[in-house]
């Protein structure tokens, strides 16, 4: 049974790797931050599965903290469009997405 949870954790890891492919390809920074978000959710799933496989309830605390802080990076990120939308309107303006 614990092997099954270990296998599940590995499969979720593989799906996280697929999400990282999206973070690599972009094309926009929103896509990248979404992929990071998916890695975060995947990490919580892996932590829960790993905790079950090893019978360690302490790992649930890590999962709890991870879900609590999942939104922090996103809220820092969405503050950005102000600068992107107003201060540089030239077509070849510097962009964070390059």
């Amino acid at each position, binding site marked *: 049974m614990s092997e*099954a949870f270990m296998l599940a954790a590995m*499969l979720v890891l593989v799906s996280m790797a697929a*999400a990282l492919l999206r973070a690599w390809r972009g094309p926009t920074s929103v896509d990248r931050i979404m992929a990071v978000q998916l890695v975060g*959710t995947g990490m919580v799933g892996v932590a*829960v599965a790993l905790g*079950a496989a090893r019978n360690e*309830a302490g790992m*649930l605390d890590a999962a709890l903290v991870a879900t609590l802080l999942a*939104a922090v990076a996103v809220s820092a990120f969405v503050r950005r469009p102000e600068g992107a939308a107003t201060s540089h309107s030239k077509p070849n303006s510097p962009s964070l*997405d390059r």
Partner: protein
Amino acid sequence: MGPEFLAVLQILSLALLAAGVLFYVAGSVGLLRFPDAPSRLHALTKADNVGLGLVSLAAAIYWGEPAIAAKIALVWLFAIISSGMTAQLLARAAPVADGSGSPAEYERESGT
């Protein structure tokens, strides 16, 4: 609790785990294959949280302790709440980053 009941619980837990992993994979495939940011966001927030919920449920059944089940429920609850927030924020940020208009214009177009 008889041994049959425990066996049923175990099978249930395994089935939930498999379904959860399937949803995770579906979420990743959606993120990779969908054409634009809003539809990718939809794959991310829906499929992934269902996947987490199913994996969590499987783990809670496997552990079989109420206190741990409560903590796992809390994990899922927070995951849903924060993904609800991030989905809204990212959906509003997406058109801006695409260069296809400001959030206000996007709102008018989609009629929300």
